[in-house]
């Protein structure tokens, strides 16, 4: 399954709830305001590091650039563009948006 999260982990609980429901082999894609969670050296990044042992973590590059945090994304997270988002949605049998 591909999970998407579009809110910051500080403002909402969707990031935490998503990680609590992602299974081995799933992918999590951070989009829109969700991308801040992947910033190096933060508490959410530590949670992502933990999750990355079982789950693949992606962030949407256009959203990263818009927010001025390019170059500050933690290691082990892959950047994708909108075409890459489409590929991820195609590769996984279902897509769940954590709204």
């Amino acid at each position, binding site marked *: 399954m591909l999970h998407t999260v579009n809110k910051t982990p500080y403002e909402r609980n969707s990031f935490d709830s998503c990680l609590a429901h992602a*299974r081995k082999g799933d992918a999590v894609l951070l989009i829109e305001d969700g991308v801040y969670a992947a910033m190096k050296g933060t508490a959410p990044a530590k949670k992502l590091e933990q999750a990355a042992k079982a789950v693949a973590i992606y962030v949407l590059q256009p959203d990263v650039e818009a927010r001025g945090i390019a170059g500050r994304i933690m290691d082990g997270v892959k950047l994708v563009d909108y075409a890459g988002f489409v590929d991820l949605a195609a590769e996984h049998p*279902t897509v*769940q948006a954590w*709204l």
Partner: protein
Amino acid sequence: MSEEMEGGTVKKFLYVNRKAPYGTIYALESLEVVLIGAAFEQDVSLAFIDDGVYELMKGQNTKGIDMKNFSPTYRALEGYDVEKLYVEKESLDARGLAEADLIVPVKVISAREMTDLMAESEVVLSF
């Protein structure tokens, strides 16, 4: 997928409810999808996690806010053959709620079981 197969396709639909009722319209409009969707004879499950568990609270009385109390509709779902309602135990616990607080019979499951339910679904609708 062939035309023939499409006609008889039965997919596992999961409606994920994560929001409290009334503060926003998502819970109500999600329920409207469930009711319409019931006519399509799919394999339907409803999941209530996080603040979504509040939707099922007994004793809702919306007179004072002048909005429609739609909680009795959850009781009517059985008549639409929508019978699989799953509520996450961790979400209830965190909010000081128990199964007895809910307006309909549900299956209370763990977050791990909820994760499996999500993984087994083919169409996930979350609003």
